[in-house]
């Protein structure tokens, strides 16, 4: 890379070499400069926060629902992408996880599991507004009972709390309990 400056200038060959590398180097330099200005990827969350999704959403939701799962059949393509997104999420690549989930959502835009997964990735990225929005959509599109329902409302509650909506968070908490109550709410 030092050749780029032309300072080494040892012999004609080196010069020619540097001239040719110029075309490549230019591209590389450009890439570096451009990337320097590009929006920085989401920094990985600190270790203690990584479990927020497990601690606040997944584990309690499993308890809430006594493991009752009401899932629609999933397309194998969606399953594959969901699994890949799960791996990316586990290794802390939240941007990659959301790209994969988005790709899966293009295939099945109303899949409640995908939408909830996306909500949880948003929690990890600390984008609580989007976490809230995806969880709500998952609930609307989903079975509105069972484990996923509990995850929906736990995510909604958590997001509202982070967004400073204490009343909303409390309401969400009460809705978690109704996920096992198959009787619909009266209005």
């Amino acid at each position, binding site marked *: 890379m030092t050749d*780029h400056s032309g300072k080494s200038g040892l012999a004609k060959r080196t010069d020619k070499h540097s*001239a040719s590398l*110029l075309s490549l180097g230019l591209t590389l*330099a*450009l890439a570096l400069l451009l990337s320097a200005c590009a929006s920085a990827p989401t920094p990985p969350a600190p270790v203690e926060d990584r479990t927020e999704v497990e601690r606040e959403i997944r584990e309690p939701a499993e308890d809430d629902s006594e493991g009752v799962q009401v899932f629609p059949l999933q397309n194998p393509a969606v399953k594959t992408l969901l699994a890949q997104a799960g791996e990316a999420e586990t290794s802390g690549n939240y941007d990659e996880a*959301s790209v994969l989930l988005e790709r899966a959502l293009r295939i099945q835009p109303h899949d409640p599991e995908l939408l909830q997964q996306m909500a949880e990735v948003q929690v990890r990225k600390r984008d609580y507004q989007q976490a809230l929005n995806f969880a709500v959509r998952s609930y609307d599109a989903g079975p509105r009972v069972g484990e996923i329902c509990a995850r929906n409302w736990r995510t909604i509650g958590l997001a509202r709390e982070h967004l400073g909506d204490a009343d909303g968070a409390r309401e969400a908490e009460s809705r978690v309990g109704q996920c096992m109550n198959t009787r619909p709410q009266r209005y």
Partner: protein
Amino acid sequence: MVKKRSKKKTGTTRKAAPRKTAKRKTAGRRKSKARRSAAKPSRFARLFRLALLVFGAALGLLVPWTIYLDHEVRSEFEGRKWDLPSRVYARPLEFFSGLALTPEMLRVELAAAGYKESASPNRPGQFSANGGRFEIYKRAFRFPEGEEPEQRLAVSISGGRVASISTRGGQSLALARLDPAEIASIYPLLREDRTLVRLEDVPPLLVTGLQAVEDRNFKHHHGVDPRGIARAMMANLKAGQAVQGGSTLTQQLVKNYFLNSERTLVRKVNEALMAVILEWRYDKSAILEAYINEVFLGQQGATAIHGFARASRFYFDQPLDRLEAGEIALLIGMVKGPSYYNPRRHPERARQRRDAVLAMMAETGILTEAQANEAASRSLGVVDAPSAFGQKYAAFIQLVRRQLAREFAEDDLKTEGLRIFTTLAPSEQTAAQDAVSQGLRSLAQAGLPASLEGAMVVADVSSGEVRAVVGGRNPGSGGFNRALDARRQVGSVIKPLVYLLALEHQGEYSLVTKIDDEPITLRQPNGQEWSPSNYDETSHGEVTLLEALINSYNQATVRLGLEVGVTQLLHRIEQLGVDADIMPVPSVFLGAAELTPMQVAQLYQPLAAEGYAVPLRAVIAVETPGGESLTRYPLRLMPQDRRDAIAVLNYALTRVVSDGTARALPGLIGGQEGVAGKTGTTNDRRDSWFVGYTRNRLAVAWVGEDDNSPAGVTGSNAAMRLWARLFSRIPVEPVETRMPDGAYWGWVDGETGALSDKQCNGAVQMPFVAGSEPAYQSSCLAAMTNTDKEDDDRSFWKKWFGKKN
């Protein structure tokens, strides 16, 4: 984001380096020469002095001349090379079992991505088709998420859906995606159209083939090739005419810089000198790269076609890296005489030349004998219309530019060689353009003006990704892009929002609430009186909201509008993501508001997506040529507060299609059900609109005259026909009928609108925002509740779950 600074900086480094070293070198050379001459013995002093004099004089002339030439050739070389166009990609086609796809659509997708049909695909970029069974040898491609290798796929389609995907070995695959079509290059606005490539993106066969045909000694010579000249002279002597030129690629490059057919000796000497200078200053690969981007390969009207990449577009409508061996051979062969071997005008000559090049490739071992023969057996593969590239997608590309303009300087898009990943679906763009072009022709045959224009926007409902943009009956970049820029009155297309506002008035309005469709007179802000009439010039008396909406009654809508308020309506339009400058006057209730088809699509996206608004997007990601992500436009949801009212409205809009002003539609799309939509017609029949959506596709169609003159069009006689042409080719997924929290399906008496029960005669299902249901019960329901009190709970259950949504 991408800054000018970077360009300037790289520019100076690039230029400074050779200049500095060049000076040093010239000085060094002179010194060593002087030393050598001084060391010579003085025995032939006089002779030597004479020689020195001649040498000095020559040097005195040659040095400034060389410096001059050096300056000339360098400014050409460095001034032209570096502006890399941005490459724009369509969305990649993702195969999964269940994907709605017909063999015809797949063929369009494959053609757009430059795939060639072949009896037995044995190279990336080829496919074979047998009915619904496709074998595709997909190319490797670097997606923003990473590289995907080449792969041989078998895809079978039946009943309009992908049934299975597998590897060639028969292993079933859950999903696979094609490399995307390249739909545009955004390149610098030079006099000539250019599509520049970097050497590393040039197919190796072109690089080696070019040398085999034009300059076999390229790697070793210093700009001129005495051996090559000798060989050419021999060949010419043997043939008795000039059959071979001895110019090196470097000399040809110089010749291309100073295009001049003059064949004087001075010219030749200058060319040779400049070639030597170029070789001295620059690396072989830089020279080759410049050559590949510079060489003259044809003429399009007044525009010269320079460079292989541009020529690849011009002759084959494909990027250079997707050409087959025969196509590469043809382009190489054309270097010798682009007009003499013009494949469009002289196909036979061109074919012979191509085959000669293929033979040379085989002879030098670049291709095997079999490969060369196979390539020679193919047709030339030249497309008819040279302007096709960029034209087909021009209207969409304008949208891409606008979305990017918010973040990038125009210059950067043109010079940084960015990779832009968009949402366009080539098959849907083609289908939408056909729907508009053919639809307008057929309207003219049916007696409507032949001068009618049209536009269309197609988007994916949930993601807001724009799949197609049609700017007019003729695709092309020159024309007016009506989809983005035609601001036209929307007419009844706006009415659903008036009803949405009413449904949001909790407890006051439901679809069965009665309103008056009676004459009404209002005083406009300008003092004039305004008395809207209905389309059929009749007032219909007391009607339900549902009836008024699906039949598009004007008088009822204005009355309802006055209840909900015009400012609220304008506010709601803003909330739905459309920033339009609309006068707050009552005639807005009937669509006295000018919007573009794109804005109408944005207005309806939240309705189609069950209340989850997203901004319509044409670009997903932008990255540098090296694959660094610059920006991404991820999916971001903006839920509307009143999704309950939106769900109820959606049902009403499906009734527009089944029983209302758009009731002719199901017959036009093969009886498919579950479409929601709204027609729109403006005063004096100037504009025809149709907005329609299924669960996954939203499309807006507009038809009218460019000069806004009365055109005899209505929503259902024109725009809806165009819309139907598109959707008769796309399988419909019925819109969602399940109600969200806050809304539910109830039963009402079909005659009286009174609350009823499933078991009652004449009861019909109706969605309600909770709390808005009628307060009065049908006699049947009243009897049931009285006699069956303890069963109340069960009947409640039925109301909720007893019906299939």
